[in-house]
């Protein structure tokens, strides 16, 4: 593998890792703070991708579609939390698994009724459709760099939100001791709703910015959901920092595995997970 090729694969793996982080961050926060295992998290990614497809066709701009889509998915997240998830925070994990599995079926079928079962492509915005030439015949698409930039910006935003703001302080207090935080006058129900909506929005935005690269198709959430589980298991449940490092690690192993060891590429990531489990059964950064 020459340098240019290596650089392309490296950029691809970082971009994939950052995208996984956007999904896994929401999953790990929702578990860490509310104690809910959410199988439907992949559906939010799918929802985002379909929103990007239908909104960008109607509004004529992907950027506008992402902004409107983010607001819509936040509202959707708040509604879902209020209607269902809020009643499951204290329930058995088994009940949560079933609830969210039922939701996968419902979301898939609603998607099929609303948007059909076809595969769709989302055009890359004009402004970002260029490629940066690396050698005579190799180049790197600007849009993928844009994706990474958006993910990094959101990751930094998430870090600042959680560690530097008053809201973040309340979120951390709630995660540390729900009852104590409530006794000190923090509206813990509101915090839960906000965190849940945040997780949904992050997943949906990941789906939206990935739509032009990954295309939009039925069941696109399942595959990504399981990858997120792997990331969360490796990183340690509840740890956003762990999710970031694990996501980048999974991105690297998956991308380079496909190039260097194509016959076992599908299994490599799970072997990585097995190795981490042997070494640290509770993940690299257990909270």
């Amino acid at each position, binding site marked *: 593998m020459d340098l240019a090729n290596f650089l392309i694969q490296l950029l691809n793996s970082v971009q994939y890792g950052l995208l996984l982080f956007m999904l896994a961050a929401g999953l790990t926060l929702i578990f860490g703070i509310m104690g809910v295992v959410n199988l439907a998290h992949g559906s939010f990614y799918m929802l985002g991708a379909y929103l990007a497809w239908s909104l960008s066709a109607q509004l004529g701009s992907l950027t506008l579609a992402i902004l409107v889509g983010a607001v819509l998915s936040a509202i959707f997240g708040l509604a879902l939390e209020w209607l269902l998830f809020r009643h499951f925070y204290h329930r058995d994990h088994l009940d949560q698994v079933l609830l969210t599995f039922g939701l996968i079926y419902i979301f898939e079928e609603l998607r099929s009724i609303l948007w059909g079962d076809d595969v769709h492509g989302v055009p890359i915005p004009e402004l970002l459709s260029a490629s940066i030439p690396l050698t005579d015949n190799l180049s790197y698409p600007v849009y993928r760099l844009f994706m990474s930039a958006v993910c990094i910006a959101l990751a930094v935003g998430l870090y600042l939100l959680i560690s530097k703001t008053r809201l973040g302080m309340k979120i951390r207090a709630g995660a540390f001791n729900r009852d104590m935080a409530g006794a000190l006058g923090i509206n813990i129900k509101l915090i839960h709703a906000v965190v849940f909506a945040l997780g949904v929005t992050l997943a949906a935005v990941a789906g939206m910015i990935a739509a032009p690269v990954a295309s939009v198709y039925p069941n696109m959430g399942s595959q990504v959901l399981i990858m997120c589980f792997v990331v969360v298991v490796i990183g340690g449940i509840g740890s956003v920092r762990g999710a970031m490092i694990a996501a980048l690690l999974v991105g690297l192993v998956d991308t380079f595995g496909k190039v260097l060891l194509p016959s076992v590429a599908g299994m490599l990531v799970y072997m990585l997970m097995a190795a981490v489990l*042997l070494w640290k059964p509770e993940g690299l950064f257990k909270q």
Partner: protein
Amino acid sequence: MSTMKANLEVLPRGVQVALALGLIALVAFPFTGTDFYVQMVTRMMIMAIFAMSLDLLQGVTGLVSLGHAAYFGLAGYALAFLMPQGEAVSLWWTLPLAVLASGLGALIIGFFVVRTHGIYFIMVTMAFAQMIFFLFFDNKVLGGSDGLYINFKPTIALFGWTPFAWWDLDNKHTLYYFTLAVLLLVYAFLRRLLWSPFGRALAGIRVNEHRMRAMGFGTFRYKLTAFTLAGALAGLAGYLWGTQTGYINPELMGFHMSAHGIMMVILGGMGNFAGAIVGAFAFEYLLHVFKDLPRIGSVNLGKHWQLWMGLFIVLLVTFAPRGILGLVERFGKSRKAGDE
């Protein structure tokens, strides 16, 4: 957290009577039903074996596995590989080998997963099942995404001797009664296991693993044994599935299938194996009903079966989290309370 749900290990007299009546109905059924329904009930019984094997983990030991379908599929694949293209092989050595394959798979994966607890266990079992899924999905040698055909049903001749003309799994009624016999054997085995010292230790792990360890039980060994045994029994179901349908594909190992298993166990009531059987029958029947819904105007209701199943699951878990047997028990209690 699964300790919060007290398990119904001792079956009330009423439930025992209902089960006995159910068994009589199952024995009599082929005399009344058409071939289509005989095949459907055969499949329900196969799923009931699968659900019971999962109940050993989920209801008895308190381990929620979201990857149990992998072991179901492994035995089916084992059967496909053991069956040469042109001839049928004997059940008497392929069945043990296929079950062994599933058990071995569960032993290896169990070695990694039973170190984890609660939510980790759920996610890790699912991820490893997906790994096996991809192993078969990505490799053409292993059948790839299309899966493999099992062209013949295994023969059940005893050393080349067939005692009766119908002594052949190609006969739908023979396959039906064979499956029923396996179902009863597995049920009897698991019920005995439940009340054996080993079963009591598993129940102890569900209620309080720390205390079990403090009392000197090597809980890792117990959990690994349970996981392996459950995988092997799931393989028994997978073998029968491959025999009945004549094909096996990666989808059968996917997490939808695993989640269906969890659903069956919950639907009936956990921890006593009878509930798993009831749940498997009820779930498969519901699936059949939802897929068979009529067309009203331009809307084909049956095509949207996932929506109805999804809504059903959400409603069930919201309002009746302890399943059918739980409802029976609750009804019984409230009636007793009324008497006093």
